[in-house]
């Protein structure tokens, strides 16, 4: 989308122009730290927002295409995973793999709780569909974590 490209360029350009802390400090003078810390905090908040609501981290930076893409695809993966009766792990997993699954499922942020509310009948991994559903849910979480990390890096001006 050309309009999105220009918006993203504008965002990254404004980020770099309003970022005096990223320039090289003059020898003998202390490196400025105030604005950099604020930027780091804002970038972290944007990443956290992208984790809690898929796509929100990009939406806050006016990357509408990416925001919509992340929201819809992560939502579709969660919806399909729940519909296929995949296993939604909880914090009381018995082993390391269950904990790993819980972390992956939690990666979907608020969608994890929506999935728990939608899946009233529990999981059914005795069939192949339920097993696929478990993978769909875990993949949704990992993808959303990747998207949140991307939003965080974009907010720091490293990539967009």
């Amino acid at each position, binding site marked *: 989308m050309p309009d999105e490209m220009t918006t993203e360029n504008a965002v990254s350009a404004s980020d770099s122009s309003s970022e005096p802390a990223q320039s090289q400090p003059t020898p003998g003078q202390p490196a400025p730290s105030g604005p950099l810390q604020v930027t780091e905090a804002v970038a972290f908040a944007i990443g956290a927002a992208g984790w809690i609501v898929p796509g929100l981290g990009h939406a806050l930076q006016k990357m509408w*295409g990416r925001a919509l893409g992340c929201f819809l695809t992560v939502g579709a993966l969660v919806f399909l995973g729940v*519909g296929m009766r995949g296993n939604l792990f909880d914090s009381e997993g018995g082993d390391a793999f269950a904990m790993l699954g819980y972390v992956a499922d939690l990666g979907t942020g608020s969608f994890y709780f929506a999935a728990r509310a939608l899946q009233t009948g529990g999981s059914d991994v005795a069939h192949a569909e339920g097993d696929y559903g478990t993978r769909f849910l875990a993949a949704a979480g990992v993808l959303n974590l*990747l998207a949140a990390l991307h939003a965080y890096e974009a907010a720091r001006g490293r990539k967009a």
Partner: protein
Amino acid sequence: MTSAADFHLSHFQAMVLFALLISIVFGFLSRRRTSERIKYILWSLILFLLIGVGIGWAMYPFSR
């Protein structure tokens, strides 16, 4: 009622849906222009499917 929506997909349908959705996210995150995104999504989808079918084919002798 077991959940809000029940889906009954074959192995191949599940694989195609999974590959498509993952490819879309990869394409949106890694490319900026729409044309580049479409190319990346298609290329990633084809590779997902080819590798998935290839691994399934390679595992077939051990399935029984």
